[in-house]
């Protein structure tokens, strides 16, 4: 009987997050993302939409006895050099502005910086086209 070598293929994931940093689904998204990489797979892009944009905010101050998701996301993206994109329209509406947008709209607070990039929904579609799987987290 011939031996069959099972090769697990590397899957490409696009992960979209729709809920704020304090939402349990945001933590689940991060844990899923970590497990995907630990399992040898790739993440083509993290895309933050709707309230998900708050995960990229440097202005969030998490209570000491809670999980600091924005900080953990930043560390995760930096460590694995992932593409972290925040939907610009969703971010503007929610007051999550980077330097450029704060200047453009003459707003005081700059809430987003590296490694996050503000961009359009085209980046979400691009990720969906590139990936084998799209996983969305959000709601509760």
């Amino acid at each position, binding site marked *: 009987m011939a031996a069959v070598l099972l090769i697990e293929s590397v899957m490409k994931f696009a992960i979209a997050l729709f809920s704020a940093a304090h939402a349990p689904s945001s933590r*689940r998204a991060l844990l899923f993302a970590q497990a995907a990489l630990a*399992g040898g797979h790739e993440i083509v892009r993290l895309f933050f939409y709707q309230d998900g944009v708050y995960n990229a905010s440097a202005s969030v101050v998490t209570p000491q006895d809670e999980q600091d998701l924005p900080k953990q996301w930043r560390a995760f993206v930096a460590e694995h050099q992932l593409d972290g994109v925040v939907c610009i329209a969703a971010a503007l509406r929610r007051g999550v502005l980077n330097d450029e947008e704060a200047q453009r709209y003459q707003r005081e607070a700059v809430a987003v910086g590296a490694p996050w990039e503000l961009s359009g929904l085209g980046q979400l579609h691009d990720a969906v086209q590139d990936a084998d799987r799209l996983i969305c987290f*959000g709601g*509760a």
Partner: protein
Amino acid sequence: MSTLHVLSHSPFGDDRLSSCLRLIGANDALLLTGDAVYALQPGTAPFNALIAGKPTLFVLAEDAQARAVEVPDTAKAIDYPAFVELSIHYDKVNSWL
């Protein structure tokens, strides 16, 4: 084609579970996460709906454990590596945001 449906809202006072059960396919599966694990509370309408619908059922273990909700024999408790595997095994993931 097969879909992994993912729920994360409590089924009490929310129509995601019933909507999902109405259109879940024979090759699909249902993963309960977050407050959706409350659907496993025995003797409740959502629990009975799950028994009646008989979907292939997975439960995120940490959420059942946190809420002291027992995972019945008809469901499989999973961790995150298994969640990743499921998302690959099924052709797509439909999270009911």
